């Protein structure tokens, strides 16, 4: 069932998850899941509502605290207490700075302009000189087609523009990998395309990405590996053409039929 990772290019590991469990009170949301993403991989996580896919993504940068398991970012294992909570706050902060997260609800800071949103973390957390950060931010905004919106406040942008700005904000930290948590689920249908276009470009330039999505066609197109989660377990995984073109398990077949 498992995809043979050794057959792919032997580039270094970016993200590794082993035996990840997560419970909210009595409810076990993740029942031991694994994931390996090498540099340049695009891993798509799909699954129904409540399957645990967002939780799995959010455990990577500890927005959710795992109950147990191992998480390794760029060869560095996150030090955890026996209950899964991070043992070293500073390590978590440092590792988070190497992971660009994009949220369903964009989460741009409403009291800052788009440009201020982009340079906030580089300047005030990473210590990048301001002129350098501004130059990089302007380059990234131009790339996502928002050069003329640098001075605007987020509330005055469309959802698609906000999400493109949020992607640029994450890129501005020059992260090792990008984490996308259903980046188009909050968008009007006609705005989905512009955001997927930006993500597609990132995949094409060989960025490491973990992508939780409901866009099956898109997942098949951009990903190098697909994970299908069901009830907190990996039901099936493999290369996209295999998973989508020739699903083995009945649950995945059923799922693909309902979302098609």
């Amino acid at each position, binding site marked *: 069932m498992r995809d043979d990772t050794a057959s792919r290019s032997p580039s270094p590991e970016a993200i590794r998850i082993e035996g990840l469990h997560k419970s909210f009170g009595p409810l076990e949301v993740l029942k031991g899941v694994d994931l390996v993403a090498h540099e340049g991989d695009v891993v798509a996580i799909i699954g129904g509502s409540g399957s645990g896919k967002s939780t799995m993504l959010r455990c990577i940068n500890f927005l959710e605290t795992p109950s147990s398991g191992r998480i390794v970012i760029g060869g560095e294992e996150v030090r955890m207490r026996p209950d899964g909570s991070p043992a070293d706050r500073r390590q978590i*902060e440092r590792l*988070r700075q190497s992971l660009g*997260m994009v*949220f369903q609800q964009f989460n741009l*800071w*409403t*009291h800052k302009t788009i440009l201020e949103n982009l340079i*906030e973390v580089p300047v005030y957390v990473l210590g990048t000189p301001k002129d350098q950060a501004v130059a990089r931010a302007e380059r990234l905004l131009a790339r996502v087609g928002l050069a003329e919106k640098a001075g605007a*406040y987020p509330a005055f942008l469309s959802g698609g523009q906000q999400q493109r700005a949020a992607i640029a904000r994450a890129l501005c930290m020059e992260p090792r990998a990008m984490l996308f948590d259903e980046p188009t689920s909050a968008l009007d249908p006609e705005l989905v395309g512009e955001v997927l276009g930006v993500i597609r470009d990132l995949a094409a330039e060989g960025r490491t990405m973990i992508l939780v999505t409901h866009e099956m066609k898109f997942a098949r197109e951009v990903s190098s590996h697909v994970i299908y989660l069901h009830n907190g377990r990996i039901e099936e995984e493999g290369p996209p053409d295999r998973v989508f073109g020739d699903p083995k398990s009945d649950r995945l077949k059923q799922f693909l039929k309902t979302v098609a």
Partner: protein
Amino acid sequence: MELIGAAGAASTLDLLAYSPPGWGANLLRGLWNSILIAGGAFGLGLLIGIFGAYGKLYGGPVLRDLLAVYTTVVRAVPELVLILILYYAVTDAVNQALIAFGHERIQISGLAAGIVVLGFVQGAYATEVLRGAILAVPPGQIEAARAMGMPATLLARRITLPLMLSYAIPGLANLWLVATKDTALLAVVGFGELTQETRQAAGATKAYFTFFMAAGALYLTLSLVSTYLFARLERHARRGQPSVGGAR
């Protein structure tokens, strides 16, 4: 009535003149003291409020209980009673301690005592105003900063506090106006703020109506200027947020 009529406009102006025998300088000194106390108390209250709000939201159970006792007691007991308790009891306790350690008894300045006492009261209200405002900040924006590895204190300073300000300002403006008027309560402990100065001027000249009207006008002016400044501050804090006014 006859007294006022007999005194006439000219002598009213004489009474309020800046230099003696007018009492204008005394009133302005009182006003200035009131502003100092209100400003100091408001600032201290804000500081207590920030720590109180964060403590109530993120603190451990012991800290939360202590803060609950603080906000409950201070908000339950009348300010005047608190001022009498804190002013006399606290200065007495400080002096007892000083004597016990072999020091001289000291006279605590009315200004410092006033700021501490009113600040302590303001802090309880500010804790609740700020706690509510922090809860009103969209959690996603705080989560975004956390996800990018922003340390907690920087996150509070750069993201949470500026964002909560727009929710907190109406409540804080109320607190400031209450602070300016609560300074009048310090008259009972004989501190020379505006009300006390007014009382002395009125008592000495028997022109009660004139002086209390003048004091009222000064309080009103202070309030109008404050309201204007808070409105400007609120506009700044709400930058980037579309106005709801247009939807009416």
